[in-house]
């Protein structure tokens, strides 16, 4: 048993049900500090539900969750301060400019030295030239880059990514991957859910498969090639049709 402190995220016996439908059943997961974990799974496997519970947006039905030693149910605000979330939506206000969006969210997170921080963030995602333009005029890829800047503004130690590649063109997806690999070197803990196998596997330290609300595969990335994994994934997900009680 390792000391609790070396895990950024621990989940034990996590269950979430909507009425009689189970989204997650008795899920266990421990993510080490600095680890990059990718969770694969078909639609409806419970991936988004898991991210929502970890990011304090949803409450679990039963089970224990601990993020950096805090419980999402008891201390949601201290967790929210330390996580950065990128989801299906960009969370950006279209009528505001790029800089205004960052300023608004920066104030919500009480980021210190905000003006300078905004300039740095915009430069990091290559949007300095468009700082004063309204987000409405941005392409999907540019919006996603701004969403990244928004999620990183308060320097979170854990990143939760929910299908970040959805709707991105090749170029934007490439930018996202490069940025994620740079973050990896900074040893931030990252949890990504996706059904895009190529993109998901390239950065992961560890790969996990979620099916019908249960983990059915959990393996270190090292020694598993993308081809092998594709075969495994197909067997797991498409080979056996999901069973429903």
């Amino acid at each position: 048993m390792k000391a609790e402190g070396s895990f950024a995220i621990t989940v034990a016996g996590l269950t979430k049900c909507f009425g009689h439908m189970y989204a997650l059943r008795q899920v266990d997961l421990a993510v080490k500090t600095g680890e990059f974990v990718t969770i694969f799974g078909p639609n409806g496997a419970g991936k988004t539900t898991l991210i929502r519970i970890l990011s304090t947006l949803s409450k679990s039905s039963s089970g224990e969750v601990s993020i950096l030693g805090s419980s999402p149910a008891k201390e949601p605000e201290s967790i929210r301060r330390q996580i950065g979330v990128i989801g299906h939506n960009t969370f950006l206000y279209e009528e505001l400019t790029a800089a205004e969006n960052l300023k608004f969210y920066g104030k919500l997170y009480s980021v210190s030295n905000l003006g300078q921080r905004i300039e740095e963030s915009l430069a990091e995602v290559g949007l300095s030239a468009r700082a004063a333009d309204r987000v409405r005029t941005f392409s999907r890829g540019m919006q996603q880059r701004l969403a990244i800047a928004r999620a990183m503004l308060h320097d979170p130690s854990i990143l939760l990514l929910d299908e970040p590649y959805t709707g991105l063109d090749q170029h934007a997806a490439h930018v996202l991957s490069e940025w994620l690999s740079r973050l990896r070197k900074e040893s931030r803990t990252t949890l990504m859910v996706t059904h895009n196998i190529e993109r998901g596997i390239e950065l992961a330290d560890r790969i996990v498969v979620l099916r019908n609300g249960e983990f059915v595969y959990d393996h270190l990335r090292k020694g598993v090639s993308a081809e092998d994994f594709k075969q495994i994934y197909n067997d797991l997900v498409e080979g056996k049709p999901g069973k429903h009680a």
Partner: protein
Amino acid sequence: MIFSMLVFSLMVAVIFNFSFPPGSEFIDDAAAGIIWMTFIFTSLLGMSRSFVREVDKGCMQGLLLAPIDRVDIYISKMLINLIFIIMVEVVVVPLFSVFFKINLFDSIGALSAVLLLSTLGFAIVGTLFSAIAVNTRTREVMLPILHFPVSIPLIICAVQATNAVMAGQAWSVIWPWLKIIIAFDLIFFLVGYLTFEYIVEDS
């Protein structure tokens, strides 16, 4: 938004004027009611938009992920609605005074108190209900259906208090109405404060 509210407000006021024969004496008795009908419709117009951006563009999640108390979202939305409606009222009330030939400025203090406290009540209830209505299939229809019946006491008291102010009646006549308005504001602010979290939470 504030501009459309202002234009709408003026149009409603003028249209109400046409519902009376020229030079009618009824208009003095009905003026308070017309003023409030105008403000109620205007405030519904503004408040129905309170959470549209957040819900349609997913910004609500962005707000919910921020390390802030959820009730702060309610209070800020409510205050901005209040400020918008008050700004419209500041422009429209003097115009009413001209259109309907009523002198509203003799008792400007009492009038301001009635306007401010009643509008606050509308904003308190309306902002909360707009957070509900924006999640329903018939958004624009749902807000008035929820808002009108609950705010009936506020409408009665606001109209009667304004009537009393315009008739130049003593403070002792206005005060009982104002007391109910204040009770409405306090009680529903408390209920809204306690329940808002349940509306915005995702399951």
